[in-house]
Structures are given as C-alpha cells and as structure tokens.
C-alpha cells in the first residue's frame, strides 16, 4: 500500500514572491485540483496549484478504505493510494505548488484591465488569486482559474437537531480524521445518523477500531449510500440500519449520554410516541455535503440553488469568463473516479481558454438546461456549443422504472431506456449534437432533462 509521505512533495514548493504569472491557477489540491492541473499541464499551460493543507490529496488522505480507481485505473485502490498516483504525476511535472496556502480572494481583471475580452481569449482578462501562507502574502495571476475546493459536511445545526450541545457530536469526516489521521478514539459507543457513504464507511471503521456502533439511522425510507457500501459496511458487520428514523434530541450536558430517535412520517416529520432513547457517547453525522463556494461567490460566480455549485457550460466554465469549476465544489459526486474524469475536462478547457486554442469566444448557441420530474438537478446548466454534451444529474428518490426524456418546449427530442434510478448514483446522459441542433432549430432557449417514473408492467 502506498504510504502517504508528507515530505514527498516539498521539492516542488515554490519560494514565495510578490506576484507570479501562470496560464491556469487551480484552487484546491485534492483529486479534482490535481486532475485539472495535470490536464491543463498536458495541454501546454503553465499551471499552479494552491492547496490550504500541507499536503496534496485533499480528503482522500483520510479515506483509507478501498473502492477507489475501479473506473480510472481499472484497479481497486484505497483513497491515499489513489491520491498518491496523482501526486506522483504532479511531482513529475513543473506544476508549481503552493501548499499551506489559503486563497483569500479572486479578482477578475474585467473591471480594471485595459485589455478587452473582445480581443480574443489570448488577451482576455487576467484573474488575480491572492493567497497567504506562512511565508507571507502572494498574488498569482492566471488567464484561467479552476475552482476545485471540494465540499464540506452538513452540520448538526444545519439539520436542526434539537437538544443539548455536549462534546461527542462529530461530523463523520471529523471522526474519520481523528481515527485515520490522528490515531485518536473519539468515543466507545456510537450512533450514526445518515446512511450516506461516509456514514456507512465510518460504521465499519468504528467497528474495526473497537467502537461499538449502536445503529445507523436514516431519515429517508431508503439508504442514501451506494449499494455496495450498505452491504460491505453494515450487512457484513451486523450493524442495523433503521430507515425512516432520525435523531430528535441530543442528551447529555458535558458529553453525549444518549440520543433520542423517532420514526418519521411520509413528510419526514417525527411521529410522536415513537421516541426511543439510545444510550451512546458519540453521535456521528453523515447528513449531506455542501460545495464550498464562498470564494466562488465572492468572485462573482453564479450558483445553482439545486447543486449549490456554480452554473457552468458544457466546458465547465462558470458565468465569469475564464473561471472553471469541477469536482465536489461543482456538484457532489458519488465516486472519486468521476471527479477525476470531470476535472480533466475542466483542466483541458481552462488551458484551451488560457492559451487561446479553444473553439473561439463566440458561442454558436445559448441554451439553458433545467431538471424536471424526479431529476434533482441537471449539469451543465448552460450549453453554448453544438457538440456532444454529457448531462449529469441525480434523482431525488429511488424508482424501479423510469426513463430520461430530453424536451424542448413541447417536443420530446430524445428518450432513454426504462431502468431503475437511485439518488446515491450520479447519472450521466449523453446529448448528441444533433439533439442540441434540433432544439436550436425549434427556436428553444431551454432544454429540459426530465426523469419520469413509468408504470411497471
């Protein structure tokens, strides 16, 4: 197994100076940032990665379970192994690394720059990324910026769990960090709320480390994580999964002493009379992830309220010319392999934009994409070229039989096969150029991606 070595990348660390110019500045050194940087570098761009931790790898560093790389490397790897493959590739290039560096702002040159965007991508506005690290403040300029900051976990407060506020309530990722990075035991008896993948993986991890897991509780009537994780992490260890049940009170003044759980009705409201007290000293929360877009918003990037990530076009370019987004900061992915694939596209597109080798500044179409039916979102939200476009989406609830339909106005442009859909899977649906052209010919300004359940025979 590839051991993660913190010193392995120090040789690439750039001495701090006042301003350094690059073609592409990538913000975030996790799987998304590394894949984007490598793709941009491959396309001939001068690339920098800014990472706030001391190490590349992002959250993969603490994901020591297997299940990574099956699609990208055709091989099952742990998180650190998967990350190390990219770290090694980055090290083999002259990509500049700014580690331990926190970006405090992104300024786009549009307002101040004398050069006009109209002159073509080659002379487009330059973005200035201001960062700080223990050596001081520093500015990086880039013709393109790739946002790859990842996501954060939803907290107890966001889901409004009532009760007291003792020690022992952790997000699953924080507990994972204590166990896998710090070698510290966060408690002895845990209850896990949320059957997302991190919650399932932590149920197994806690059990293996001698922390007894009283049960996994899930608000929804179905498990939220991947099927394989329910089997490998709960079923194999005899950990009960309680569906349509949630934590309705935290009990304990100083340290968690118990939680109260209640069953919920179809509208997800707790059912009075179903309360049950589960003694425990630890509550782990795996209740969703939120793209970390504070920097993006400050840079003027428009967000999609459904994904809480940027609205992008088919090249993963945001509404701010030259700023691209990929990975979990754009939308929460199911698999790291999918993050890699998406980020490679973003990196290549950012390089093409920066080097002026792209398809040209004038879009040949302008279509928005909206979700309908049980599709929770559709990405990209804008299509500006008649070219093969991969539409990503997730469904809001599991169904045994549904089909994807692509609509423009009243016309159905394309339909997919009838098959089952699950919210835990990030789906991908290719949109051929002729379908996009058809929408334009119809005079449409919007394409609708609808996932519609069908009656089972």
């Amino acid at each position, binding site marked *: 197994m590839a051991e993660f070595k913190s010193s392995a990348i120090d040789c690439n660390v750039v001495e701090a100076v006042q301003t350094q110019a690059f073609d592409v500045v990538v913000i975030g050194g996790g799987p998304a940032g590394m894949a984007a940087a490598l793709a941009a570098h491959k396309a001939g761009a001068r690339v920098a990665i800014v990472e*706030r931790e001391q190490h590349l790898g992002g959250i993969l560093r603490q994901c020591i379970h297997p299940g990574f790389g099956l699609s990208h490397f055709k091989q099952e790897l742990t998180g650190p192994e998967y990350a190390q493959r990219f770290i090694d590739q980055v090290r083999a290039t002259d990509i500049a690394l700014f580690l331990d560096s926190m970006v405090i702002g992104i300024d786009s040159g549009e307002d101040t720059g004398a050069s006009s965007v109209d002159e073509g991508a080659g002379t487009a506005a330059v973005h200035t990324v201001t960062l700080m690290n*223990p050596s001081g403040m520093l500015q990086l300029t880039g013709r393109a910026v790739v946002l790859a900051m990842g996501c954060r976990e939803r907290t107890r407060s*966001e889901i409004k769990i*009532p009760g007291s506020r003792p020690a022992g309530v952790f997000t699953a990722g924080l507990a994972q960090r*204590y166990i896998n990075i710090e070698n510290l035991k966060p408690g002895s008896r845990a209850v896990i709320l949320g059957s997302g993948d991190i919650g399932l993986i932590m149920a197994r991890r806690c059990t293996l480390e001698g922390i007894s897991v009283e049960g996994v509780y899930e608000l929804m009537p179905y498990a939220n994580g991947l099927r394989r994780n329910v089997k490998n992490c709960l079923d194999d260890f005899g950990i009960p999964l309680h569906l349509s049940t949630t934590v309705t009170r935290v009990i304990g003044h100083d340290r968690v002493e118990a939680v109260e759980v209640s069953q919920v009705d179809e509208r997800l409201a707790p059912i009075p009379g179903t309360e049950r007290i589960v003694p425990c000293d630890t509550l782990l929360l795996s209740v969703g992830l939120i793209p970390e877009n504070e920097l993006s918003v400050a840079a003027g990037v428009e967000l999609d309220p459904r994904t809480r990530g940027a609205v992008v076009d088919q090249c993963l370019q945001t509404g701010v010319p030259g700023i691209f987004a990929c990975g979990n900061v754009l939308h929460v992915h199911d698999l790291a392999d999918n993050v890699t694939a998406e980020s490679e596209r973003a990196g290549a597109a950012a390089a093409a934009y920066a080097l002026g080798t792209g398809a040209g500044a004038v879009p040949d179409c302008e279509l928005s994409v909206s979700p309908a039916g049980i599709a929770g979102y559709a990405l990209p939200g804008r299509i500006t070229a008649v070219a093969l476009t991969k539409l990503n989406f997730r469904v809001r609830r599991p169904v045994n039989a549904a089909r994807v339909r692509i609509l423009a106005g009243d016309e159905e442009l394309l339909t997919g096969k009838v098959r089952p859909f699950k919210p835990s899977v990030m789906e991908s649906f290719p949109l051929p150029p002729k379908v996009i052209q058809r929408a334009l010919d119809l005079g449409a300004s919007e394409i609708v991606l609808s996932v519609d359940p069908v009656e089972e025979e």
Partner: protein
Amino acid sequence: MTETFDIAIVGAGITGCAIARQLARFDLSICVVEAANDIALGASKANGGLVHAGYDPAPGTVKAQVNARGCELYGTWAQELGFLFCRTGSMVLGFNDEDRAHLEKLRQNGLANGVPQLAIIGPERIHELEPRASAQAACALWCPSTGYVDPFEVAIAALENAVDNGVRFMRSAPVEAIEVAGSGDDARFTLATPVGDVRCRYLINAAGNGAADISHMAGAEEFQMVWRQGNIVVLDKEPRTLMPLYPVPTPVSKGVIVTGTVHGNTVITATAAVREPGDTQTYASDVNALLTGARKLVPDLDTRHVVRAFAGGRPVIQGTNDFFIGQSAVVPGLFQAAGIQSPGVASAPAIAERMELVMRETGVELHERADWNPIRRAPDDFDRAPLTRKEELIESDPAWGQIVCRCETVPEAEIVAAIRRQPGAVSVEGVKRRCRAGMGRCQSGFCQSRVVAILARELGCDPSEVLLEDAGSWLVEGPLKGVR
C-alpha cells in the same frame, strides 16, 4: 488554602466582569470567583448580543435607569476595552393601528427613560434605513442609539482589563458555602470553594442564575430564580449586515428579533418559555418559532443556513421583572447584582457604574489608583486586519500565516494568543469565543482536531484531557493503538 481580598465578586458573566473592571481602578484587592472554567459561560453566553436602547423598561424601574445609560456608555467602553461595537440603530416594526399605538407607548417610555432621538416613521423611511425590512410594515419606532456587540468579547475584554489592573480570577471555583462573621470584621465573608477559601470584606453577588443560591448561603434576601429559557439561532454571513429589527414586544419578552452581528452573521433572538432550571436544550418548536418570526420581519431572509442554534436561561427573579442592584438589607457588606436578565448586556457598563455608586454611598472607601490603566489592547484579529498588518504579522511569526479555521480565517498564532492571554482559553469553546476558530459555517468540522492539538501542546496535556467546554466534556478518549 485561603486567600483574602477586599472584594470578592461571585460570577464572571458580563455583569461580574463589568463590575470587576469598574472597581479595578480603586486601591482595593479584588477577586472574581467563577464556578465554571471560563468567562461568560452562563446567560452571557446564550445571548443575542443586542445593546437595546432602553425604551422597553417601565419608567422608574432600575432597568429603565441602567439600560439607557448602559447603551450610552458602550461607545466609551468599546473604545477603551477594544471590543467591537456597532451602533446601527434599530426599528420596531408595526403592521397595523394597534401596533402603531404600541409604538407610541414605547416612544413615550423611551422619552421618560432618556433614550435619545426616538421617532415614529413610515414605510418610505423604513425601507431607506433597512431595505430588507418587510414591505408589510406600516410604521416603525426608529431608535438610532441601538447597537450590538459580541457578548463574550465584552465580558472577556472587561475581565482582561481588570486582571491587567491586578484583579484575581479564580475559575472552576463554585461557591459551596458562605460564612459570615461579625460586621466589624475586616474579612467577614468566607467563601468555601473546591479550589480554596476566599475571604473578603465586601461580597458582590453577580452569580446570574445562581444569584438566589449565593444570597441564601450568605443569609441575605431569600428569592427564587425563574429559568426563562430562550432559544437563539445564528445564520450564515451575508454580504450586508442587517439592522436590528424588532416586533412589537409581548408582555414577557421583546419578541423574536432579527439582527446583524459584529461579525456579519444574522442572529434571530429569542424565544421565552419558563423551563426547568439549567435546561439549555434547543427545541424544534422554538427554532421553528424563531425562523417564522424572523421571516415576518425580513421576508427574504434565507433561513436554510443555520450555523448554530443554542439556548440559555434568563436569570429572572420570581415575582419581579426588574433588576435587583444594591446593598443587601439583611447582610451589610453584601452587594447584590441579581436578576440581571434582558437587557443585561446593554446595561452591564451602567450596572457596574451603579454598583460603584451604591458602594460609595454605603461608606465603602474608594481611592483611585495612580497606575490604573483603562485601556485593554485587543488581540490581533487576523481576518479583520488590513493587508499590511497581515503581512507584518506573518513576518513577525509564520504561524500567523498558518490558517487553522478556514471559515473564519483564524491562523494558528491567533489561537495560541487566545490561550496565552490572561485569563486565557482552556477549552475548544473558549478558543472559539476568543478568536472565532470553529464558529463558522462548518462548525469546526475541519479545524477541531487541529485546535485540540494546539490546546494540548499549549496546556501541556494529552489530547484526551482537552475539553470542549467545562469539566466532563472530553472530546477523544485517547490513542486508538498502543503507540503514539
């Protein structure tokens, strides 16, 4: 071990800290005795931070006198003690004729209480002052003197300044018994605490929700505390900070208020329900009432991003809504600052001023010290520091460039400073209250383990001994595998 002081103040909430700061200018030995392991862990912690202007209390009450005066004093206190204070003004929104009559009554109250520049205004002016105020609001009481503070910061700043002027702070020292000797004794009170006895000539009861117990232990006035619990919600930061907006008050509270904070968040404060003493639980019904109430005042308020919900108890004396400030009629030498519920934060500087006056009037000799320093130098707040100062700081110590809390941009050096200041942080929450590490939208998901490591290093203890808050609130059991 017994230590003797001229004055012992029981309680390091905002009231006790303000009194300590006020009296530190005199040639007296003073000790602040606190049951918890840090400053402001009671009602001062679970607080919306509003500096109410003083139009609410009924004229003639003690509250009426100290509220308006406290609000006035905040400008000077903020300057001298280096804490953040925004005097933004506020509006009480009225939606109908009945409300308008109520607003007029509040205005009359305010005039009687000496609140400056109150005015009843109409929709146009309302939206000029706060564009996000409900369009349904037909009238409002505009009160320019209202403001807000971070209540922890005020208490901490006041006590830091007091300690800098020689005041002693004893933490984790719950008073278990009080012995009272004859009135001629130079140290007639003896307070028994688990960390040693404290003897003093004058005793000040600023024990918040514990004030009735302290009074009882000293053989002074008997009264009961009522735990009027309030839930409060903090929302994420917004580009523009909201002006405090109040509904027309209810008979027991000011109702659900929406306000900005000194750090740019939005706070919704507070529900009011009598509950079991010590109950600091949040309740789903209360949180919903807050969010619903807030949207009445600010319809476009995004209430999805709750950063934190918390609750505390207002220290109300049963049978009165007023503060009890003065010398005990039963035990001379004992001075009470009890029943300091809302508007306790707004009144704190004036309560301190009044306590000084009361002590003088009863013959306590107060001689000003030549070396009293009214100024407290605030710690560097990296996030708010101008760029040049940031650069200076990083140059002075690279740990200023090592960001630990990404949500609030708190570097390691700022956390270390919070621990090393006097009185410093001894817990994860203590660090949070002093420098905001862990106070942001991720609620310490990314930084808690690093803050624990810094605390363990600075306090010279094992991570398993690091506390979230007070005794018993351990965060990790210890190492998973034998060797570390």
